């Protein structure tokens, strides 16, 4: 994405804030 998006290239993306596995883990536990 930095190759075509100057905003991304100039930013330090906080990747850990872009996703959570918390709810999928619960769903997987519910439907084993």
């Amino acid at each position, binding site marked *: 994405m930095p190759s075509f998006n100057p*905003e991304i290239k100039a930013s330090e993306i906080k990747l850990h804030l*872009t*996703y*959570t596995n918390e*709810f*999928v883990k619960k*769903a997987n536990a519910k439907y084993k």
Partner: protein
Amino acid sequence: MLNIGTGLTAILAALWPALALAQGSLEKKDVHIAVGGKASLYYLPVTIAEQLGYFKDEGLVIQISDFAGGSQALRAVVGGSADVVSGAYEHTLNMQPKGQFLQCFVQQGRAPQIAIGIAKSRAASYKSPKDLKGLKVGVSAPGSSTNMILNSFIAKDGLKPSDVSIIGVGLGAAAVTALKTGQIDAVSNTDPVMTKLEYHPGAHQRDRPRRQVDPRRLAAGYSGNRSRVVSSG
């Protein structure tokens, strides 16, 4: 075949900051989901979960609003008219520099599920992505994941997004018609559009990305994600 291999996939995401959630209780029963082209197989898990009543099983009342493309669905969440967007993961990345912190909580596919094709009338002169320079390329909507994939694809050959003409054609019959009638020279789109074009004599080339998640797990992910369905604006 044009395999992009970016790893971008359809997801469900909502805005941070999330509210604290007491496990086991619904924070929000009525959830408004914005989708950019619901008829696309890209969003099949959402439709299956809806049609088979999986959201209802989780105690949720879902309203789904369909938009022409992912960028418009995204705007619905950012603007506060929807709680959740069913769209591409990369939106969580390109919204951060704008101060909008979206969080993915369910991944709906394991492959991008977006293909790039070129009209047969142009195919003979196509050897690499740089040959798309100056052509009219149809995407679902400007700024959507189909546009992002295209940008990524042509960047491999040193082209800038401005080196092609982007035309929004949606994710349905209009996209097929646009290529068949010569309104566009190439297309970045999802199934069923790409399959229809593949079997039409006027177009060819596509990749074969597939793998959807279990829709029941997706619905459970929604119900478990109550804290993330609150828009912070």
